[in-house]
């Protein structure tokens, strides 16, 4: 398991000639989290929240200013080399591969650096090329690859050492939808096979789909954690129920108004484009069932009922203090 305890990372300020050093930047501030094997854990936050810095500390590319990080009990500072054998990092974008080498050669190069057993390396490379859909382009130089192909190769590079823990920093950035979907399937399979995955992504639907547990950070601090469902429920953001009726009836309107008042919901009543009565209720609780029952009991006929629950994205924005999301 990867465990961070009170992790803090401050970047020193810039040193200018004949001037005092500028102020430092606190990127991660007292972060404690656990990434178990065999599960996908999410790390979310807005831009500049400290996600990438935290991931790079776990990957041994950065050194913590204070606090501790252990991977299966090994400290990231004292046992960096042993940890590098167990982990890998895949960052979004098309970097981290060599443009003048072919896809196969890139994987061979990194396989050599990871000292992947020689007999297994060839098979491993073929498996990975197949996994990321680059078999046909395996012997083409990377400078002729499209952006998405480079990114897929970068993903294969991140898997070359069969890492026990995989750190994914926006891995689907710039990928076409089908490829991103395939990658999500790969990540889910890796977790099923026992790999511990830490995922940051701006595509929160991806996080909701893959992660059993999510940490939310803001300005380097942990602000919430839990399952995506629990996080969404915990913010008490409104469910929106939109109801379109066949005709106006005072009894039905009264029933909806009574329900809204009792539940403390915001109610908007207007008409749709075709002049049919429409009610929109916003409440922390899902009132769809209750409002449908009330309308039917009052003799109304429902033409359309749409429920929009709050998303993880709304929850993250609300936690980050976005006033629009909070409304």
């Amino acid at each position, binding site marked *: 398991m990867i465990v961070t305890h009170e992790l803090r990372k401050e970047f020193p300020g810039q040193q200018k000639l004949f001037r005092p050093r500028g102020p430092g930047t606190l990127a991660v501030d007292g972060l404690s989290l656990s990434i178990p094997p065999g599960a996908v854990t999410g790390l979310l936050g807005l831009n500049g929240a400290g996600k990438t810095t935290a991931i*790079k500390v776990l990957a041994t*590319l950065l050194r913590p200013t204070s606090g501790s990080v252990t991977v299966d009990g090994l400290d990231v500072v004292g046992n960096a080399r042993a940890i590098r054998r167990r982990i890998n990092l895949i960052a979004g974008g098309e970097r981290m591969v*060599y443009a*003048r*080498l072919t896809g196969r050669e890139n994987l061979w190069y990194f396989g050599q650096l*990871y*000292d992947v057993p020689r007999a297994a390396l060839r098979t491993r490379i073929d498996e990975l090329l197949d996994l990321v859909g680059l078999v046909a382009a395996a012997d083409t130089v990377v400078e002729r690859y499209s952006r998405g192909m480079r990114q897929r190769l970068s993903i294969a590079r991140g898997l070359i*050492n069969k890492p026990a823990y995989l750190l994914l920093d926006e891995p689907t950035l710039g990928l076409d939808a089908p490829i991103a979907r395939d990658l999500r399937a790969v990540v889910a399979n890796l977790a099923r096979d026992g790999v511990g995955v830490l995922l940051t992504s701006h595509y929160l639907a991806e996080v909701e789909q893959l992660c059993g547990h999510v940490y939310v950070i803001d300005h380097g601090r942990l602000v919430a954690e839990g399952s995506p469902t629990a996080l969404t429920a915990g913010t008490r953001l409104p469910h929106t129920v939109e109801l379109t009726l066949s005709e106006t009836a005072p009894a039905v309107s009264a029933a909806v108004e009574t329900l809204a008042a009792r539940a403390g919901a915001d109610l908007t009543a207007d008409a749709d484009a075709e002049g049919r009565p429409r009610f929109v209720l916003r409440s922390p609780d899902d009132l769809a069932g209750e409002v449908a029952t009330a309308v039917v009991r009052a003799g109304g006929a429902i033409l359309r009922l749409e429920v929009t629950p709050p998303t993880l994205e709304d929850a993250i924005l609300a936690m980050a203090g976005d006033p629009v999301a909070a409304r």
Partner: protein
Amino acid sequence: MMATLRVFAAESLKQHRRIFGSKLVLFSMLLWPLLTLATAYYTVLPVVESPEAVRRWPLVAEPGRLLAFLAAGALAYTFFFSLVQSAWHFSFERVSGTLEAMFLTPASRMALVLANGSAALVQNAWLFGCFAVAAASASGTLHLAHPGMLVIAALALLVPAVAWGAFLNSLLMFSRDSAFLYTLLDDPLWFVAGVRLPLFALPVWVKAIGLAFPLTTSLVVLRGALLDGRDAGDLAGHLAFLAALSAALLCLTALLLRVGERHAQRTGSLQLF
């Protein structure tokens, strides 16, 4: 040990693809050193034709030997400058993100910089090296005390060059603003190392600076072993100095790698470009 050899194999492939990416590489591998040699020869020729020059430097009375002297300089310079170029390219790995990818791996950092330098050296210098030895043999300017001196000359060129390359790699890998070193180590290296002129013709202060560069002593050994028929005993002092200088460069490389990686981990500079 096996892991280190695998790093060497990986870097060899990378350097091969980088250097042989275009057919124009043959220009830089052979024609460029030959043009540089011709420029040096015809620049020196009018000066050395004076009677005063012949008195101070008798070798210039024989154009064939003068050319061999300059060719040995160009050969050694090609070796050492190819490592400056390689280190400069190594610093580009920061931009492409591959420097971070390399540092994610458990590969020994020392093995990485040594492998990078030696792979670049072999890829860059083999053609001109073969050409120079063949030309020297054919023209009769090769004057060996015994055949084993060829091996000593090769080692005196290769070992310090690899140490020099590793040192430069470690220096440039952690520096974003490395272009000045490229300029600093081009023409000034020619000058202070005695590539075009014999060391005795240089001012004392230039000679003192030149001693800090392994190219200077490598050249003394190379010329002594290949052109002047000197044996290992004659060159023992220079060889010992070269060994000490190479060892010092490797120690400094290890220190720089350690300090540099720690600095990068503290500041996040591996990703800055």
